[in-house]
């Protein structure tokens, strides 16, 4: 059984590394300290991937959503919303577990041994709602309505919160670009402090950013129950052994809610289920939906 778990998780790690390398493959950017500006930047990538990362070849969907909403000529972002609908309807939060570069960073940090790992932060049940607040406030309402004299807003989540932007864009550019380094101030210090806090937390708790703060995960989570890729649970096969719950790193009960909005589809529960009660829509096992 352990071998099977490690195989799925090894494949997941390989996919995460490949996707991160592919979507951030502009190596010259890491040498010159300049970002890529080719035509692929008009297309969104599925995960949280800052477009100001020196290596980024595509656009961050969350940044793009704010960019269009904060533009004075647009009140609705049909292009990005359409993209999120398609990706969400296909995959749901599978994107978080398998395709997101910042998710990979948190997964790698969680592998670092620590005296006592926590399954969840105190108040986990309530903290999970923060990401919906950030989605509504910082990603949609503030970019739409907090505008200047000419009607132009700004991307509030990118500006004040996004740790992916700081890690993949801010820090590398601060190292590589002397002109930018000289201009750093309070905002950079605030975002760096937030990022450091999240990186440290990631050693203790699995994926704190995804669970509590990520608006993109909040969006994709809404699709989990109806996405083409989803989990199935056969209550007749379940022996209530609790193995799935113990294996879940984000502290869910897959047998009670196999398509929870919080599930990042890492698949650890599928591997440990001794009777095959849990399966996915891609699984070859016979299982009736529940």
């Amino acid at each position, binding site marked *: 059984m352990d071998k099977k778990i490690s195989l799925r998780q090894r494949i997941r790690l390989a996919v995460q590394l490949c996707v991160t390398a592919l979507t951030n493959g502009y190596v010259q950017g890491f040498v010159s300290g300049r970002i890529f500006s080719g035509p692929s930047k008009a297309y969104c990538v599925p995960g949280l991937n800052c*477009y*100001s990362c020196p290596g*980024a070849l595509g*656009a961050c969907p969350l940044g793009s959503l704010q960019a269009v909403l904060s533009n004075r000529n647009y009140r609705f*972002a049909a292009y990005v919303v*359409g993209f999120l609908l398609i990706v969400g309807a296909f995959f749901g939060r599978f994107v978080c577990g398998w395709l997101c570069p910042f998710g990979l960073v948190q997964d790698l940090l969680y592998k670092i041994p620590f005296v006592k790992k926590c399954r969840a932060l105190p108040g986990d049940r309530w903290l999970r709602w923060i990401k919906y607040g950030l989605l509504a406030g910082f990603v949609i309402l503030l970019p739409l309505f907090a505008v200047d004299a000419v009607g132009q807003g700004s991307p509030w989540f990118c500006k004040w919160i996004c740790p992916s932007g700081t890690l993949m*864009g*801010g820090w590398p550019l601060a190292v590589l670009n002397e002109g930018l380094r000289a201009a750093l101030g309070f905002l950079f210090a605030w975002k760096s402090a937030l990022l450091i806090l999240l990186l440290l937390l990631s050693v203790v708790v699995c994926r704190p950013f995804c669970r509590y703060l990520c608006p993109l995960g909040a969006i994709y989570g809404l699709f989990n129950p*109806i996405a*083409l890729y989803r989990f199935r649970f056969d209550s007749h096969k379940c022996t209530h052994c609790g193995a799935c719950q113990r294996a879940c790193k984000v502290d869910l009960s897959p047998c009670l809610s196999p398509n929870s909005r919080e599930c990042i589809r890492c698949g650890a529960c599928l591997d440990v289920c001794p009777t095959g009660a849990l399966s996915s829509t891609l699984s070859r096992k016979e299982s009736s939906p529940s």
Partner: protein
Amino acid sequence: MRALFRSLLPALLLIALGAVLMAAGVTRGEQDIVFIKASNLCMECIGLG
């Protein structure tokens, strides 16, 4: 077969709606906004405001 189709229907409808919205967005020039934002340095993203 019908049960399978019924379980996939919501996702398929959303994918179709997504495709229509994306096409509408491209027609409205939203992709250009995304391109301009993504191909220039985003000061907010890197913490310069």
